């Protein structure tokens, strides 16, 4: 193919999802017009719903069947993609255009070994296939390129035997196997921890040079593209509203929306007004956990075979205290036992050791707001269920049933409003809400129980930067006004630095460092803290 200045040229592309009821809906992509230069790394930034994923799917030809391109064209190396037959377009996938996606944990077929799945990339394109030995050699070579030292072994492994970062490397190997000219990366790092993110980005950059690839990098985190992308485009409501070189956009944003995104991703405490409550450490703690040791169940047979096997434990003698009004940060890389600890504290996992809670209830919010709410019921139902579960039901109070109901409704509305959701949300169902709004509902469900402590397990990881910033503000407001303590689990050091006065670092199921946040982060004593900090620094430059 001849070389062009622009490898991809998207020309006034408009795309919508017409239905029978609404044949002319508001376009999802509105007159999108841009080019990707050969050899560059182009960042495409925007909040969820801004149309960045649809743009990439349109280029790849993987749009959902209900999508209609109403005008515009997409040219790849001079050829009009929209004029091509579906078969020709499919043949381009993998060979000319590679893609990697957001969630490496589900992006590989669980029933097939990694080697076989990579082999499919080669066999799907007959002209590049070759003999089985040649294919195997190519796969092993590529696995080596993406950083595996034990490539042969990885070939024979199933996806569940790999970590998230390893799976993403396998996926990158699959996408790069046929050395495509364009690699589309759709939020490839958003579900990975900071340390892994840094290594994946370094790998992508390296591949870009080695294989002369062009990369379209999609992300919601503006600060994460620093030092990675050459140029950045910002999308909002299906339109590209800002484009500039990466350094200019990050240091001197001209567009007000870009500036806002930047503030959100940097979590500037002064601009966002994050003011956590002051903590009095002389008061008795709301939660005391002593010598928590926990692990995951073994089968009956294993237990019979080996009674005193303790190496399945994920946590070893973890003790911690949370004081009233406090926001306690708990950080650690993936696999450090953060989630296991939370499950033990909540009593969801059998463990040895004691947990004392000085409160009638503790609330919990989790990572994935999608699966935490029941899709069949309205928000009002969720709230009144939470109220019932708290035992603070109003049924014992005097008054007629109608009066009690209206009092309950008033209470629910008040709590929802406090969480920034008006009365209009009462009758909505979870699928009518955005990720950030669902997470607010989860918090409201905790708040209505009036807990002294809310445990938040990675509540930001599935939200875009703007929603994260808003949620963080809500949490600090609750902390300040309601004196609710938080135990905040995250792999994002940056967030902890902004709002948590005290910090615990977990590594390999043990607490390796503990103390005031400023001291721990300012002068890290353990290697794992230092590694987390280093990754943070190289990612965000903070």
């Amino acid at each position, binding site marked *: 193919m001849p070389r062009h200045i622009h490898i991809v040229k998207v020309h006034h592309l408009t795309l919508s999802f017409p239905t029978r009821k609404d044949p002319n809906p508001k376009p999802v992509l509105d007159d999108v017009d841009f080019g990707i230069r050969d050899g560059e790394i182009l960042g495409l930034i925007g909040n969820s719903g801004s149309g960045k994923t649809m743009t990439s799917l349109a280029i*790849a030809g*993987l749009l959902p069947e209900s999508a209609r391109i109403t005008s515009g064209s997409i040219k790849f190396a001079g050829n009009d993609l929209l004029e091509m037959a579906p078969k020709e377009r*499919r*043949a*381009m*996938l*993998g*060979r000319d*255009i*590679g*893609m990697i*996606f957001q*969630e490496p944990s*589900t*992006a*590989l*077929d*669980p*029933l*097939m070994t990694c080697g076989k799945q990579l082999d*499919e*990339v080669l066999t*799907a*394109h007959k002209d590049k296939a070759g003999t089985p030995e040649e294919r195997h050699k190519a796969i092993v070579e590529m696995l080596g390129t993406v950083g595996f030292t034990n490539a042969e072994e990885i070939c024979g492994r*199933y996806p*569940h*035997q790999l970590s998230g970062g390893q799976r993403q490397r396998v*996926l990158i190997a*699959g*996408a790069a196997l046929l050395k495509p000219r364009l690699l589309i990366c759709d939020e490839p790092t958003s579900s990975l921890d900071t340390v892994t993110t840094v290594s994946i980005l370094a790998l992508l950059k390296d591949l870009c040079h080695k294989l002369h690839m062009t990369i379209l990098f999609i992300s919601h985190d503006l600060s994460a593209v620093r030092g990675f992308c050459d140029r950045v485009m910002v999308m909002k409501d299906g339109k590209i509203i800002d484009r500039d070189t990466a350094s200019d956009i990050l240091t001197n944003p001209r567009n007000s929306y870009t500036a806002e995104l930047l503030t959100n991703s940097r979590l500037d405490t002064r601009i966002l007004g994050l003011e956590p409550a002051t903590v009095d450490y002389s008061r008795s703690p709301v939660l005391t956990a002593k010598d928590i040791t926990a692990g995951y169940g073994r*089968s*009956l*047979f*294993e237990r019979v*075979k080996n009674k005193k096997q303790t190496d399945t434990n994920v946590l070893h003698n973890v003790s911690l205290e949370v004081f009233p009004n406090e926001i306690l940060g708990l950080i650690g890389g993936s696999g450090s036992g953060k989630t296991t600890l939370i499950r033990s504290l909540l009593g969801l996992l059998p463990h040895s050791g004691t947990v004392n809670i000085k409160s009638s209830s503790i609330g919990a919010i989790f990572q994935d707001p999608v699966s935490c709410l029941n899709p069949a019921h309205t928000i009002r139902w969720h709230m009144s269920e939470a109220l019932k579960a708290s035992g603070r039901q109003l049924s014992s109070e005097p008054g007629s049933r109608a009066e009690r109901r209206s009092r309950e409704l008033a209470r629910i509305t008040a709590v929802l409003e406090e969480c920034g959701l008006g009365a209009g949300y009462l009758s909505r169902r979870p699928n009518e809400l955005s990720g950030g709004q669902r997470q607010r509902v989860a918090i409201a469900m905790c708040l209505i129980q009036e807990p002294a402590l809310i445990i938040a397990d990675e509540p930001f990881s599935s939200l875009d930067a703007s929603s994260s910033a808003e949620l963080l503000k809500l949490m600090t407001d609750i902390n300040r006004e309601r004196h609710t303590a938080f135990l905040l689990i995250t792999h994002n050091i940056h967030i902890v630095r902004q709002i948590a006065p005290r910090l615990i670092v977990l590594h390999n199921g043990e607490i390796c460092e503990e103390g005031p946040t400023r001291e721990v982060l300012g002068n890290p004593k353990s290697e794992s803290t230092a590694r987390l900090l280093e990754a943070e620094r190289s990612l965000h430059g903070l």
Partner: protein
Amino acid sequence: MQSKAGYLIGKTVELILTLLVVSLLVFAAFSIIPGDTARVMLGPDASESQVELLRAEMGLDKPLATRYLTWLASLITFDPGKSYAYNVSVGELIAQRLPVTIGMSVIAMIMVIIISYPLAVLSARKPGRLGDQVCSVIGHVLFAIPPYVASLLLILLAGSIFSLLTVGNYVRPSDDFAGYIACLLLPSFAVALPKIAMSFKFLRSSIIEQKTADYVRTSKSHGLSDLKILIRHVLPNSNVSSITIISIILSDILGGSLIVEQVFNLPGLGRLLLSAISRRDFPLLSGIVFYLAFVTVLLYFISDIASSLADPRIRLK
């Protein structure tokens, strides 16, 4: 890391324990039922000493634990005593009737698989299309018909109106295998009909679910054709969840054939079971109940092993 052999041994131990519990329950059930077997056999006119003599002969005077252990040992050797009513060994009686029940179940299962599988794949290709909706509606109707009603309708349809297959006839497999299959076809179909609807609905929704999985998107981005993605990724994954359902369907079919045998007048286990109940033939009854339970438990065991073979996440924990 758990080894393959370890998993198998663990499952086998589970199987044996389950069977022990099942045998205990069956034995307890028939020991608790009021009524003296010896008295029933000899009739109301027999003297007390005659009854005592028979009780001793049958071992009914021994303590419960001894009787249970003797019974258990006889089950393992496939010789759980003699039937009171037929005066023939229970093992022999069951072996005589087994070909009908097992044959019907196997034929019904094959029908379920060869009809529901292709229909589910076709239906799931474009969910919501006319063909898919027609299949779903027919499925709902079939699902609601109990096997004995379906049998009567089929007898009416095939026997009286079209006179395709002889109804109510039975040929031994040793005499004429083709004839044996032919006379089991209709009853098997009656058993299979609601199960076809059930497995169609289940397979269809599991294929639709798998089609939106992330790994399908990855395969698409690798340039695989839709057919290849269906065969290599979607179907194997939907099979993993279907194996459990299919084992449940199979045990349902076994129960269904016991009833349908009656309608088609086939000499299967169902009729033997009914006559054993009406004659209070406890050795025969407990034998049949235990061996039916045994087959069901065995089916679940096999489905566990099969799903562990199909799913590396179970196999290589």
